[in-house]
């Protein structure tokens, strides 16, 4: 049994409340946001052909490096451009397994999945994409997932017998596409790029699922494989590639449900704090850019709700079993508690919701917003944004 003293006497509930207070207070200070106040800064009636874009961070960012005073330099655009336009949930609690694939699957099913995080398996419960497509009779081109990690190749659809095969989302794994492209071109050393799970030493599960192949993507985007590689080289990170692909998808197919999982922040597992900060800054920029894209694309402008949330947090500095920002292994309140921004037509701006909500509440919220019934999920719609 490891020996270490816990010098924090606060209960998890107290810590969670403190996290919430900290985010609330900072947002109030930074944006002048109102708590439970009538919004009315903008109240655009929601158009009928609603769309939703969900951005999750695989690799949470702590308040210390974001919403606390010392962290605000890292998220300038979220604070200046997104927070004032959003309803902000200060406490999103993840009560499930704190591994990125299984946690993202839980977000996407609305049920805490319990499979091995490192296994190449589909979620047990129907995903939001299956509910969406089956209930609304949408084609396969209307729901997409973009995830940089190879391990996410089965995130698009479950193994549930009432849903499952043929009803899920198309999955694009940019790193896999690059690997395929480079195999064509004979480029040399790209192992580091494909090393996408910082928590395990390296991770490359057996491929399977409904992920898109390179030629399909080239056909969809109407770009050559060479152009794809050339553009990839001009980008700073895998997350930039993911957002580039998201923009292309939005231009070409304009899916109604688009889910993007960013992963650069998870470089924190390597223990290099400066790289973790760079990941946060990049995610900040990419989220703001994505919102701009949503506003500028005719298929999306004024009819799209954007959800931004980390899948969970990271360990606190004082949690005795952890090593601060590096991991999310302790299950302490800081690692379980995160936040969410929601922006779009009909969403109250400059509004803070302090009550705790659950990670599994995302799917029923999307269901209420887009008009499908996620009958098997465990969460509740977040009424503040539907």
């Amino acid at each position, binding site marked *: *049994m*490891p*020996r*270490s*003293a*816990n*010098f924090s006497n606060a209960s998890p509930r107290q810590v969670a409340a403190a996290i919430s207070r900290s985010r609330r207070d900072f947002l109030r200070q930074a944006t002048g946001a109102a708590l439970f106040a009538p919004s009315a800064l903008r109240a655009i009636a929601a158009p009928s052909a609603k769309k939703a874009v969900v951005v999750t961070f695989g690799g949470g960012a702590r308040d210390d490096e974001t919403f606390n005073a*010392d962290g605000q330099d890292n998220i300038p655009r979220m604070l200046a451009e997104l927070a004032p336009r959003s309803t902000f949930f200060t406490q999103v609690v993840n*009560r*499930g*397994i*704190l*591994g990125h694939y299984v946690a993202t699957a839980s977000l996407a099913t609305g049920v805490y999945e*319990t*499979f*091995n995080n*490192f296994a190449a398996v589909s979620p047990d419960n129907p995903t939001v994409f299956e509910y969406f497509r089956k209930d609304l009779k949408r084609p396969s081109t209307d729901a997409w997932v973009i995830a940089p990690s190879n391990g996410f190749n089965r995130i698009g659809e479950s193994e549930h017998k009432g849903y499952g095969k043929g009803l899920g989302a198309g999955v694009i794994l940019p790193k896999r596409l*690059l690997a395929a492209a480079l195999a064509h071109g004979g*480029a*040399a*050393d*790209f*192992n580091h*790029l494909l*090393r996408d*799970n*910082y928590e*395990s*030493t*390296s*991770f*490359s599960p*057996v491929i399977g699922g409904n992920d898109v192949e390179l030629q399909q993507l080239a056909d969809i985007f109407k770009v050559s494989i060479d152009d794809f*590689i050339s553009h*990839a*080289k*001009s*980008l*700073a990170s*895998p997350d*930039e590639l993911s957002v580039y692909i998201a923009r292309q998808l939005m231009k070409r197919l304009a899916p109604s449900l688009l889910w993007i999982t960013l992963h650069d922040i998870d*470089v924190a*597992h*390597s*223990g*290099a*704090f*400066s790289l973790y900060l*760079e990941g946060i800054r990049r995610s900040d920029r990419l989220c703001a850019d994505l919102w701009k894209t949503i506003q500028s694309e005719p298929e999306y402008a004024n009819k799209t709700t954007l959800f931004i949330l980390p899948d969970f947090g990271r360990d606190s*500095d*004082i949690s*005795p*079993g952890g*090593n*601060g*920002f*590096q*991991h999310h292994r*302790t*299950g302490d309140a800081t690692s379980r508690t995160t936040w969410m921004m929601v922006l779009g037509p009909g969403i109250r701006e400059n509004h803070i919701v302090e009550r705790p909500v659950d990670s599994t509440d995302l799917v029923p919220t999307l269901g209420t917003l887009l008009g499908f019934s996620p009958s098997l999920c465990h969460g509740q719609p977040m009424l503040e944004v539907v």
Partner: protein
Amino acid sequence: MLPKQLTAESFNGYPPKGRALAAANLSLLQTMPLAFVPFLLKDMLVFDWKFPFEQADLTNQFAYLNKMFEGDRERTMRPFAELKLSDKLENSDWVNQPAQFLEDLSAHLWTTQQMDGFRSASEDYVRRFNDSLPAEELAMPRLGIAVFGEGVSATQYKLFRKLRPNGVFFSQVNPANGKETIAEALKARAAAHNIPYAHWSIEGGALRAAPAGLVCVDYDGLTEVRSKLAAMMLSAYEAAKFDPEKLRTKLAAVTPQTVGMKDSGDGALDRFQLSLLTEGSGTQIYSTTFVQWAAREALRRAHPLTIYTRYAPRQKERTMDELLSGTQKKTATDAEGSMIDGDMGAYCTWVNMQRLPGADDARFLAWFEGHGEAVAIAPGLKAGTEDATPTDIAGLLKRVQYS
């Protein structure tokens, strides 16, 4: 197999001192739950290569558990006994592979949503055990020194942001002979209290000379071992079917001999250094991570009186273009990023010192190498203040140690 089925022969694969400890406590081990016993066995399996503090700690845990009345022990162990484990866990070779068992137990507890209960039970047990121990008398107040920033001429980054609230920020430090002055101070402390594993120097680059009386660990000194471990990881990664958990198990089984480590004559230190690379995350790649993790582990495992860490520039993260084109074969370094890593690493070391006995009297100095900025923490220095009086490293060391 359950703990009640343990016999003296169960520990035949253990080293002599570990086996003797098991034999002496066999009847106790037989009464404890399966979710608890492998935590003790993991340490007993390498007991012969543990630092003196760790050996005493484990022995004290047995003494603590043995002297409890049966009813108290049953109550203490109840939260562990009530955890629902799987047949697979029960049937695994947890006696000879306790680390593997604990990996599997962790996965099982997460999957079955029992992790929070386990965490709470563990923290409660540790707190009660620590409370049962007499206050540890330190030969001298514990001192940590962290130095970082090599290669950075100027920065816009606000350094010491987490340390400043705990001590005094000095803005007019004469950096001349700073490292030499620190080295002399370390030697003096080691000479004053020549206790095994009590004074550590952890270097992120190459160690120029090992001062007498100090346990020295340096990143460059482990280059060959790191290369061999990297090759092992790469080969596992490139296999047709990769299992990260198996790789972790394989790494845990690596011994100094299997990676060709020179026998320093100090088995405990050799194994400690190897563990930094086989159990740490990122320690194989980034020297800054290595230094921070080594300091954490040294503090946790050896409870040193003195810990000096120096962060050298780590290798730079490669860009997409470099990755895709296979260029940039020569390793470039990232001085600014390493400075930021070191700044956070210094804070982590201070936090880890706060977990140890004597925390109220602990002292700490963090210095931006070659520059005039430092933070000093000591009981007599007013926390959260600034001091613009000209001083030097010798002056700071004096104030830190004697305030």
